């Protein structure tokens, strides 16, 4: 073996290429901001101590100023990079930010989560096992605070498929946690989302070995309320956007500002939307027309809710 062959072998052993996704970039920035705040708080405390000492030494009165000059760095604008791999897309929570009960449950191993919902990073790397009936099953652990069973949803990103989950309490020497079974109807790239107590964890998992790269693209846009009495209005509204097409259907919640973005299988979709600000009988009255999604590209859609 020569050096070039060694390089090639090491490249193979290191696994597939890893993309610098927006999720990871965001996680890195949050780590930096948390550290900056911690440092700012320590600096502020140190400033207060010095001021007090000086005041005591000179016998003067401590004047104003609490030294709390904590600054949160402004986050530079990010460029959107469409990620069409099936990488797990998770940001590990820094050890300093992991509650002690979570750390005890994970026995010090890296974890993913926040607030009331957590899981072990290593669990996300585990692959689902094929069952005799042709489906795929993944045993998956969660830790909730306080204890409860999370709502777990799954969707296939690169085609049609159905998902089912089952979750129960499990108790061992680490305490009480949630043991779930995630059942995938077919192989493919799946996105699993768990929600509990306002916290959400989303990750991708490759079930089986589908051909890569994934035949998926992105639909993004805004849900808008347009029209009404003169002079009329054009406002963004929060709600839900749905798509139905040759590759199945999907549903995306918008941000409070009405924006949405979702990765979907390549295909043609009829896009509709709804918003809680409208009456039930106007559900799906918002239309976005027909959207054609091509591999690796972002298709922009404006979903318009006409107002008389």
């Amino acid at each position, binding site marked *: 073996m020569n050096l070039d062959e060694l390089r090639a072998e090491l490249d193979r052993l290191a696994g597939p*290429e890893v993309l610098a996704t927006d999720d990871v970039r965001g996680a890195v920035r949050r780590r930096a901001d948390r550290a900056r705040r911690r440092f700012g708080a320590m600096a502020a405390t140190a400033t207060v101590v010095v001021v007090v000492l000086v005041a005591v030494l000179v016998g003067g009165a401590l004047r104003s100023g609490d030294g709390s000059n904590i600054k949160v760095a402004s986050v530079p604008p990010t460029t959107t990079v469409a990620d069409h791999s099936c990488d797990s897309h998770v940001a590990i929570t820094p050890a300093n930010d992991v509650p002690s009960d979570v750390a005890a449950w994970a026995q010090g191993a890296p974890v993913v989560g926040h607030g009331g919902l957590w899981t072990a990073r290593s669990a996300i790397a585990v692959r689902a096992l094929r069952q005799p009936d042709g489906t795929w099953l993944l045993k998956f652990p969660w830790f909730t605070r306080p204890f409860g069973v999370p709502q777990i949803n799954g969707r296939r990103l690169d085609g049609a498929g159905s998902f089912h989950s089952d979750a129960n309490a499990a108790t061992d020497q680490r305490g009480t946690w949630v043991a779930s079974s995630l059942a995938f109807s077919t192989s493919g790239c799946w996105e699993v989302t768990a929600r509990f107590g306002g916290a959400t964890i989303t990750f991708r998992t490759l079930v089986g070995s589908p051909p890569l790269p994934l035949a998926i693209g992105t639909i993004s846009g805004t849900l808008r309320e347009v029209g009404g009495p003169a002079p009329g209005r054009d406002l963004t509204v929060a709600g839900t956007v749905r798509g139905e097409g040759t590759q199945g259907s999907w549903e995306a919640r918008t941000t409070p500002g009405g924006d949405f973005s979702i990765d979907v299988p390549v295909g043609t979709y009829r896009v509709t939307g709804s918003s809680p600000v409208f009456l039930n009988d106007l559900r799906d009255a918002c239309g976005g027309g027909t959207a054609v999604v091509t591999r690796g590209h972002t298709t922009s859609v404006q979903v318009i809710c006409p107002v008389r």
Partner: protein
Amino acid sequence: MDDFDGFFERNYGATLRAVGLAIGDAGRAEDLTQEAFARAFRRWSSVSKLERPVAWVYVVALNAERKRWRRDRHEAGRERTAATVPDVAGGVLSTIVVRDALDRLPPRQRAAVVLRYLGDLTVADIADVMGCAEGTVKATLHQALANLRVDLDGSEP
């Protein structure tokens, strides 16, 4: 000055893969790499002025490994002998055999060889990462390549 976004975009994936293979723990590598890039982001005004900012990221990411490598260095030669790679099919090695051989290398030899030939770090960069002299890195690389039965063909490691 290069912007952090571009730096992150170009280097995150490769750094994560190299750190993961160097320490043999993908989950921990993810944590170490994200933390190292977060520190680079905080100090970007100064880190970006370095000749090779990515080498600084490697140093930070693998800082915790240094103690282990130093300990390993003292133990090397006394009680540990890295298993050499069997000569399979006339020297043609499969990925499985290389992985097995890499797993059996002492940690510092494994790290040196991965950082040099996957991470493309210079010998000087690796010396910074491992907290040792450049000569020590060269010697470590020689040992690692010998254990892996790599034919240097007159080229420097």
